[in-house]
């Protein structure tokens, strides 16, 4: 059984988004496409509004002064069809790994319904033996893998990730990127990151968000299939380009 098999691809388009935060216009009239079944990576300096854009898409940034629409390719609202994975694993410390994976069912009042699938997902992230461990007993990388399994357990066509691997050491991060690329294949993914290499390894399309109000100032489409090799000359060349663009934008 392939517990992470994905549903039909769904593309999402953010149209003329306007977000005001603390009397400052983070973005105005911003268009942002998420291609169906593809990884879109969003780079940018800290505080430019990457996370806010992600939260806007998932419907969490709902305070006043915001406008714009989120259009899905099937014409239906996105609500309930996007899963979120954050920089911190956000595991509940009082729940075991398996119960954390099944958190969504618990919150929707269907406790224990998908136990088999949750076990399969834990096995896929290599944590079959840790189902009954509390998060405190797991390492940072293991906790983030549980979070990945929890995200997949939601089985949503759209997955929004906010720097999910940034707190990990380089090797663990690379392994988790590979794992995420394999398990999320076929889903529409937005990966917000500040690491150009990560964006180029995983993205079908890589944007840079910069300025205030923020605009998309770069739009790359790396060749080949993800996860790309970190030593690939094309990847390295584009990494240089992206770093320069990011530095210019912050100057």
């Amino acid at each position: 059984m392939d517990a992470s098999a994905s549903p039909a691809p769904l593309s999402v388009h953010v149209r003329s988004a306007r977000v005001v935060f603390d009397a400052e216009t983070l973005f105005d009239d911003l268009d942002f496409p998420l291609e169906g079944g593809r990884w879109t990576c969003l780079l940018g300096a800290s505080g430019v509004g990457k996370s806010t854009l992600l939260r806007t898409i998932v419907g969490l940034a709902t305070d006043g002064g915001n406008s714009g629409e989120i259009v899905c390719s099937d014409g239906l609202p996105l609500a309930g069809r996007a899963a979120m994975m954050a920089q911190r694993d956000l595991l509940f410390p009082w729940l075991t790994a398996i119960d954390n994976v099944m958190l969504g069912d618990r919150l929707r009042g269907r406790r224990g319904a998908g136990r088999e699938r949750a076990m399969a997902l834990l096995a896929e992230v290599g944590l079959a033996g840790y189902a009954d461990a509390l998060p405190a007993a797991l390492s940072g990388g293991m906790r983030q893998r549980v979070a990945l399994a929890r995200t997949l357990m939601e089985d949503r066509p759209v997955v929004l990730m906010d720097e999910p691997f940034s707190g990990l050491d380089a090797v663990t991060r690379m392994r988790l990127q590979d794992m995420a690329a394999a398990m999320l294949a076929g889903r529409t993914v937005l990966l917000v990151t500040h690491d150009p290499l990560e964006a180029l390894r995983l993205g079908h399309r890589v944007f840079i968000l910069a300025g205030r109000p923020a605009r998309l100032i770069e739009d790359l489409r790396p060749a080949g299939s993800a996860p790309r090799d970190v030593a690939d000359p094309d990847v390295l060349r584009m990494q240089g380009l992206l770093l320069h663009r990011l530095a210019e934008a912050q100057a």
Partner: protein
Amino acid sequence: MKPLRPLIVLAGLIALWQLVVVATGAPPFMLPAPAAVARAWLSHTDLLLRHAGTTLSEIVLGMLLGSGFGIFAALVMAYFRPARQWLLPVLVISQAIPVFALAPLLVLWLGYGMASKIAMTTLIIFFPVTAAFHDGLRRTETGWLDLARTMDARRWAMLRHVRVPAALPALASGLRVAAAVAPIGAVVGEWVGSSAGLGHLMLLANGRMQVDVMFAALATLAAMAVILFALIDFGLRRALPWQPETAPSND
């Protein structure tokens, strides 16, 4: 060494007591020596235990009622916004009235029996439990709430599966305070007017100049209070194994 520590502390306190008796030459009707109190305890064991049973019942019932009401009030305030806005000021004002000043009224209304003491204990415990739990319920990690929102959790599920478990350590602090102050409530109630209980016995012994019996009653009360606190502390630790514990003295 560690399990013996309370005993060593106890022995130290008794030695200090003996030292004060010897050094000041206080007459036995002012400050009896530890040995005299022990003799009084042994010759009045039945009497002391009978009254201790009454006081213990008052404390335990008051604890249960006070904690129950406190937990309920905190949940109501967390779930219903108007309840918070109207109930919180009432709670704060109620704390401005010294509970001890209410003791004579409680005895007048509820009689000399256990009811007035249970009410006193309940009143004294209610506020710390409510305040601690309500505080915990309001300080839920926002990342958890966001995650639960993307999982379509409704308000009730959010309270039950996110806010309440996250607030349990705060509730535990409130219950520890409650365990420490509960005996005060019961004994003050007994002093104001009663026909049984350790507080009653102390007044009686005082009136008859049986200072050694008074001290024996006091020692019994202290032992009960310490054991009650230790049991509750132990139970709370066992109930919340996931709560991280760090000592500032290890920093």
